């Protein structure tokens, strides 16, 4: 063993020089077959698909919950659901959509695409990637298991104290929620760390930060936001769990606790969270829309700055959820102003998209239709937000259906429509098949019309005074007609989504096979096969612009990216780390093999959280020891990864 093992000049070749390279790499990187291989996989593409599928299952569950609610609310005085059933449904609808669908679906995209668009072989932490998925589904199942006991959380996703304390919520409902959220927080934070380090370290040589796709900017900003905001809600839920089970009085007003502290901690997290669940979707649209307009995005730098600024400002507006709580005027005015200002970066993005359409040559594929709808609904959601940013208006509109309209325009309009469009765009890359365009059009129009029929009237419903979170309303409030319209629209929306799923199922079986680059797009993922090989790139590319595959046609001053010659990095499972600022080659990383440790650790964590739920301390101790053993096994330094001294040294 010589010292060259600690360092090495990476070999460079072309496929002509080394035609056996792809096969050697495939053998090194391929997932193992069978159930074991599926559980043990650390391949970001496989994990990305799992995130997408699982999040869609939760979308459907959350949607079913919503449809039941809309049946109950379709007419005044209905008795389809009892009050307790309705309250559990509306709470789980919010929890499911906001936590178990909205971020994970975007994680699915980012997981699949990051290494590909960055020109890398995998994410920075492949095992941690698998772990973030397993803990996500485990935490989701943990929270959903509450339904088996008829004890789903029923205090809303925002879970205000004191109603969430034992005195008013004696059952285990809130304990499921509190512990489940702390559990889910592990997944979220670990995933965010992975994205941040991947962006900092795994970019291909030459990919300076001004050459990154907007998806990367959006997800990175969101990940930084996650790292800084999730601890607030984890802490809040931990304190709630202590109040409920160990007699503390953080939020218990009858013992000098402060209910508003819950709201501050919760909203300090939850407001940044709403930007976290839209910025990556905006990034997907900012990347795909220009390609369908046959030109680069107008105002790339402005859009990047707007993305980062939105996340930063997102930490400074949380009190706008608390305008009615009796705050000092100065505080209300400040946060009101900040809430107006945060619309500005959104305006930047909106005008950038419109300018791209006006100076481009739009090609009206289904994906494009979704993106066009997205822009309009983004703006509707944005302006209704501006209305509620004004404190006096908010004092009338908060806690009415006007806010319900606002949140669904921003969440469905930005996240869901962005996701559906992005799925039509990237489905070929994920699966090797094209999603049917004819069924796609039907799917788009029914979804679009259904959504607007359901939610546009809700602005009116709010102005007519209907409060939120009510399981019924009396006849003499005059709210029956608008509610019926919304209920009908919600079913239409559901049919539209069903059509989407039908399209996916049909296309997976019989869709046209996708070439490498069906949309003639410029970014690196389209330089691989559809779907990509397990190692992504046989030769590490060298990047000279934002649009590597369009350089010849744009004929701009930049140099030319080199994709047909590059580092082979085939001494095992290897990837390249580059410097943070200039993306110059820095380290040859040794990547881990498939392993079941992340899965086993998740099972142990599930046991630990269950032990906390039922307050079985011996079970907790046992699970704790097993968790420790798993972590030690995972982190045990391995020679073949060159984490430690090579044999014969040290």
């Amino acid at each position, binding site marked *: 063993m010589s010292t060259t093992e*600690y360092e*090495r000049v990476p070999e460079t070749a072309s496929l002509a020089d080394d035609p056996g390279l792809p096969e050697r790499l495939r053998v090194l990187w391929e997932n193992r077959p069978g159930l074991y291989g599926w559980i043990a996989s650390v391949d970001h593409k496989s994990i990305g698909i799992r995130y997408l599928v699982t999040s869609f299952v939760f979308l459907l569950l959350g949607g079913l919950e919503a449809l039941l609610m809309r049946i109950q609310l379709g007419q005044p005085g209905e008795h389809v659901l009892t009050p307790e059933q309705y309250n559990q449904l509306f709470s789980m609808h919010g929890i499911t959509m906001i936590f178990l669908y909205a971020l994970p679906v975007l994680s699915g995209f980012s997981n699949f695409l990051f290494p590909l668009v960055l020109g890398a072989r995998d994410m920075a932490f492949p095992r941690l990637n698998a772990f973030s998925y397993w803990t996500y589904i485990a935490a989701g199942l943990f929270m959903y298991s509450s339904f088996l006991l008829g004890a789903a959380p029923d205090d809303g996703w925002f879970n205000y104290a004191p109603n969430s304390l034992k005195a008013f919520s004696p059952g285990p409902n809130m304990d499921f929620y509190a512990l489940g959220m702390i559990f889910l927080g592990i997944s979220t934070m670990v995933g965010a760390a992975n994205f941040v380090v991947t962006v900092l370290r795994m970019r291909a040589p030459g990919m300076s930060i001004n050459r990154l796709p907007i998806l990367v900017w959006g997800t990175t900003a969101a990940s930084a936001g996650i790292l800084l905001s999730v601890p607030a809600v984890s802490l809040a839920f931990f*304190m709630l769990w202590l109040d409920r089970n160990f007699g*503390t009085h953080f939020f218990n007003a009858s013992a000098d606790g402060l209910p508003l502290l819950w709201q501050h901690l919760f909203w300090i997290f939850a407001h940044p969270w709403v930007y976290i669940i839209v910025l990556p979707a905006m990034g997907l649209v900012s990347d795909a829309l220009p390609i369908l307009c046959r030109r680069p995005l107008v105002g790339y730098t402005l859009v990047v700055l707007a993305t980062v600024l939105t996340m930063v400002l997102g930490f400074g507006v949380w009190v706008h959820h608390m305008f009615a709580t009796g705050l000092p005027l100065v505080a209300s005015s400040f946060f009101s102003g900040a809430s107006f200002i945060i619309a500005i970066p959104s305006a930047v993005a909106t005008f950038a998209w419109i300018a791209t359409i006006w100076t481009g040559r739009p090609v009206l594929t289904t994906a494009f239709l979704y993106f066009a709808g997205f822009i309009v609904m983004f703006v509707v959601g944005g302006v209704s937000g501006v209305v509620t940013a004004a404190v006096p208006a908010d004092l009338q509109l908060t806690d009415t259906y006007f806010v319900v309209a606002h949140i669904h325009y921003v969440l469905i309009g930005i996240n869901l429509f962005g996701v559906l469009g992005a799925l039509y765009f990237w489905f070929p890359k994920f699966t090797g098949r094209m999603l049917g365009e004819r069924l796609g059009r039907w799917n788009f129009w029914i979804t679009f019309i259904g959504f607007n029929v359901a939610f546009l009237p809700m602005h009116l419903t709010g102005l007519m005074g209907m409060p939120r979170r009510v399981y019924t309303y009396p006849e003499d409030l005059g709210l029956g007609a608008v509610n019926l319209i919304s209920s009908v629209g919600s079913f239409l929306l559901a049919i539209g989504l069903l059509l989407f799923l039908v399209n996916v199922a049909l296309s997976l079986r019989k869709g046209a096979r996708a070439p490498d680059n069906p949309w003639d797009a410029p970014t690196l993922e389209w330089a691989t096969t559809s779907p990509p090989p397990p190692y992504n790139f046989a030769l590490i590319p060298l990047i000279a612009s934002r649009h590597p595959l369009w350089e010849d046609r744009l004929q701009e001053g930049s140099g030319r990216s080199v994709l047909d010659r590059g580092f082979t990095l085939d001494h095992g499972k290897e990837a390249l780390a580059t410097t943070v600022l200039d993306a110059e080659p820095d380290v040859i990383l040794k990547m881990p093999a498939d392993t079941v440790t992340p899965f086993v650790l998740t099972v142990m964590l599930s046991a630990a959280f269950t032990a906390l739920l039922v307050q079985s301390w011996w079970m907790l101790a046992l699970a704790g020891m097993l968790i420790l053993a798993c972590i030690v096994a995972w982190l045990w330094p391995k020679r073949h*990864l060159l984490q*430690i001294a090579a044999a014969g040294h040290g």
Partner: protein
Amino acid sequence: MAEAESLHVGPLPVGSPQAKSSGWFGMMTLIVTEASLFLYLLFSYFYFAIWDTHGFLPARRPTFELSAPDTVVLLLSSVLVWWGERGARAGRRRQLAFGLAGGLVLGGIFVGVQLVEWAEKPLHFDTSPYSALYFTITGLHLAHVVIGMMVLLALLVWSLLGMFDARRYAPVSIGAIYWHFVDAVWLAVFFTLYITPYLA
């Protein structure tokens, strides 16, 4: 063209070279998020201090007899760990082992002294919001110290197994920076819980 040049690079390190390793960057993100956690804990403390109209601080303010020496103990432990890491960098295995062991022992003393202080307090966990915050803040910090001690123990074992040399000791760097972080958090916690009551 600059591109042609960077295809021809000198030798690149392979694997996990200390501060260039992915693990180091990962530890940085962990520190950011755990620092946020403590920020929100201290925010909660100050929120109560400002808005609790019923008198937040206890009659007996926390004293320095145990906490001040304990702070010194923890700072010293960081010095020892730092010294140990320097040994790793120089390939001096004994220095590394003693530095880690020393840090571990002093960490244990910190935990012990803190538990004594807890036992001596007339307050219980559920006495008042102040006590709940005091024990939650110091308790979560203590949990981080205990985890840090387990990290130091693992590093000690690995170093005794001969796993580190002067060119590869990334786990030591990563573990050490975690330990120093826990130390820095203590300074913020100490300032908030022990010093600010006397400033009001």
